[in-house]
C-alpha cells in the first residue's frame, strides 16, 4: 500500500500594480470599469502595453467602459473550484463591455446554463465592500443594471497600488518505498544507508539511487549505519519570520560523519546541545523519539530520518582533525 504525504503551498503574495492596473483596481472600488486606449482600440482589462506590439500605452488614455456588456462566448462551470469566484455553478464568459474592443473574462451568475446565450446582455454585481481586486465584481448578472451586494462601503480612500493574491495548492505525494523502509527501521533505532553496487559509495537519507553511477538502489543495497559520529561542520541559523516559519530562536544544523564510514548526515538537528557549544570535532550520538511517538513526516523530502530526532553530545573528547571541516557531503 502506497503511503501519501500532503504538502500545501500556501502564501499570501502581495503584488504591486503599477500605474495602469492600479488605476483599473482603484476604478473598481468606485464601481467603474476602465480600459486603455491603443490606437482606435480600447483594451479591457487594461495593460501597460499594447498586447500585440508591446508598445507603451499612455495611462492618461484610460477610459470608462460598460458597466453593461454583451456575452461573446461562455462556458458553464458545473463544479466550481475553491479558487472560483462563486461557490455554485456559474458561467465563465467573455464579456464585451460597452465601449471596449476586447472582452473581459469574468463569472456570469445565471443559476442555470440554459439562461445564457451568446449576445446576452449582462451587468456587474458589485461587492458592497471593495478593495481594488478583480473580485470586487462578484459576477455579472443578466440585464443592463449594475447591482451592489450588501451595504455599499464606497470607494477606496486612496488610490489602490497593491493587491493580495492568496494561492493555496495541496500536493499529495506518494512516499517512495525506500523512505518508508528507513522510517520503519528508525522505529527500531536503526539508521539505514544504501551502498552502490558499482562504486561502493554509501548514501544516507533514503535517496534510492547513486548519482555517480545513475543506478537505483533497492532493499538489497541496505546497510546498517553506526549511531555515533563526529560533527564536521554546522550552521547556526537566526530564523527570519515568514508564513509557515516554526522557529523563533537561533537553531543549529550539523553535519555528522558516522564512525567508521564515509557517510555524512547533512543538516541534522541537535538535542541537548546549546548552539554555543556546537563545534567541529564534537562527538555525538543518535537521539531517538520513543517508538510509539507519531513522527512528523514534513513531506516526502523530510521523512527519511523518522524516529531519529537529532544528535546528542556523547561526552567523548573532541576529535582533532583539520580535514573534518571539509566533510560537508
Amino acid at each position: 500500500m502506497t503511503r501519501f504525504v500532503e504538502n500545501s503551498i500556501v502564501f499570501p503574495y502581495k503584488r504591486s500594480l503599477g500605474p495602469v492596473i492600479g488605476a483599473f483596481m482603484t476604478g473598481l472600488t468606485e464601481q467603474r470599469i476602465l480600459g486603455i486606449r491603443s490606437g482606435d482600440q480600447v483594451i479591457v482589462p487594461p495593460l501597460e502595453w499594447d498586447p500585440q506590439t508591446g508598445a507603451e500605452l499612455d495611462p492618461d488614455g484610460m477610459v470608462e467602459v460598460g458597466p453593461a456588456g454583451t456575452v461573446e462566448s461562455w462556458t458553464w462551470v458545473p463544479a466550481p473550484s475553491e479558487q472560483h469566484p462563486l461557490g455554485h455553478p456559474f458561467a465563465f464568459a467573455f464579456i464585451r463591455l460597452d465601449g471596449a474592443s476586447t472582452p473581459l473574462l469574468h463569472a456570469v451568475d445565471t443559476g442555470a446554463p440554459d439562461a445564457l446565450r451568446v449576445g446576452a446582455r449582462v451587468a456587474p454585481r458589485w461587492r458592497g465592500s471593495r478593495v481594488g481586486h478583480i473580485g470586487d465584481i462578484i459576477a455579472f448578472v443578466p440585464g443592463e443594471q449594475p447591482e451592489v451586494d450588501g451595504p455599499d462601503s464606497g470607494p477606496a480612500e486612496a488610490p489602490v497600488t497593491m493587491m493580495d493574491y492568496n494561492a493555496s495548492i495541496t500536493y499529495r505525494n506518494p512516499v517512495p518505498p525506500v523512505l518508508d523502509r528507513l522510517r520503519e527501521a528508525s522505529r527500531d533505532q536503526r539508521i539505514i544507508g544504501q551502498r552502490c553496487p558499482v562504486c561502493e559509495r554509501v548514501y544516507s537519507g533514503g535517496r534510492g539511487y547513486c548519482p555517480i553511477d545513475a543506478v537505483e538502489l533497492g532493499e538489497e543495497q541496505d546497510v546498517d549505519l553506526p549511531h555515533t559520529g563526529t560533527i564536521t561542520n554546522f550552521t547556526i541559523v537566526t530564523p527570519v519570520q515568514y508564513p509557515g516559519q516554526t522557529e523563533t530562536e537561533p537553531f543549529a544544523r550539523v553535519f555528522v560523519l558516522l564512525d567508521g564510514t564515509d557517510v555524512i548526515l547533512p543538516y541534522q538537528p541537535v538535542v541537548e546541545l546549546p548552539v554555543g557549544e556546537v563545534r567541529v570535532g564534537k562527538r555525538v550520538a543518535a537521539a531517538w523519539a520513543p517508538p510509539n511517538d507519531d513522527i512528523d513526516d514534513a513531506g516526502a523530502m523530510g521523512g527519511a530520518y523518522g524516529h531519529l530526532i537529532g544528535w546528542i553530545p556523547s561526552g567523548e573528547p573532541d576529535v582533532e582533525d583539520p580535514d573534518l571541516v571539509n566533510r560537508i557531503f
Partner: protein
Amino acid sequence: MVATNGPRTDIAVVGWAQTPMVRRTDLSETQLLLRVITAALEPLGLTRADIDFTCLGSCDYITGQAFSFVSNLDAIGAWPPKRDSHVEMDGAWALYEAWLRLQEGDIEIAVVTGSGRSSTGDPTLIYPMEMDPFYLAPLGADPLTFAALQARALIQAGITDERAMAEVAARSRRDARSNPDAQVKGDADIDTLLAGEYVRAPLRRHDLPPITDGAAAMVLATGDRARKLRERPAFITGFDHRTECHNPGYRDLTDSPSTRIAAEAAGLGTSPVEVAELQAAFTHEEILLRRVLDLGGEVAVNRSGGALASNPIMATGLARIGYAANHVFGGGKRALAHSTSGPCLQQNLVCILEEDA
C-alpha cells in the same frame, strides 16, 4: 527573421524512450528520469559518459517544490560535471536548446528530457497560476475554461462541431490501441460520447486529456556520429517556436498565428509530411492546428493517440517529437511534430524530421 545563412550543423534524433504512461506512479521524478535516460541510451550502445550536453525540462509548480529540478541532476550522471541546462518548459524546448547548442560544433551528443507527475496536485488549482496574475489567476481561470471558450469560438465560426470533436477523440483512442505506451485507448461510439455530460460546455470528458505521470528522454547526435549510431537517424531539418499575447481575450481564438509562423520558419511548406504529431490536449486543438498547418487528409495525424491518449505534462511535446522520429526510423521520409504551452495554444513549437539532413 531567420539569419540569412541559417544553422549549418546536421543534427538528428537517434533514439528516445518514455516511461509507461500512467494515471499515477509511485516513482519519484528523478527515478523516472534515471530509468528513461538509461532506456534511451542503451539501445544505442551509449552510456551517460558519452553525453556531452544535457538539458532537462520540468516545472516546479507541477512538482510542488521550488528548485525541484535540482535533484534530477542525480539522473544524468553529472559526475564529472556535465555541460547542462534546464528549462521551465516542456522537454520539446529542452530539445530546442540542445539543438542550438549542438550547432556550435564542438560536441556531438546531447540528451534532453521532459518529466512531470501531474497526479500529485489538482490541475484546476495549479494551472490558474500560469494566467495573468492580476486579472485571471485571482478568478481561478484555468486553461480548461479557456479551452472551452476556444472550442466555442471554433464552433461559432463553423470550423468544427461537437461531433467532429468527438470523432477526434474516438480516432485517438482507436489509434492508441496499437500504442503500448498509451493510457486511454479503445473503441468509442460517437453517439455514446456525445451523450456524455459537459465538463465545461462545449467540452465533454472525451475532449480532455487524461492526467498522466511520465517522462521522456531523447538522444541527439551531430551528422556523422548520428549515422554511426543508428540506421536512418531522424534529421532535424526545421525547428522553430513562436509565442502570442497571453490573455486569450486579446486574441482571435479561431486562429493560431504563432503555429503558422513557426511552421513557415521551420520550412513545413517546402515538401509534404507523411505524419504529424500534434500536442493537442483538447480535441478542438487538433482540428485548429490541422487547419492552420494546412495538413490534408493524406497526412496521418497523431497515430500515437496523441495527448488525448496520454498527457505527461512537460514531456507531452517531447514525446510528440519522439513519435515523429519513430516514423523516420521506420522508413518514413518526413514528419512534423508540434508542441505547445499556455492557454489556448499561446506558444507553439514546430519540429520537422527527415530521413536526409
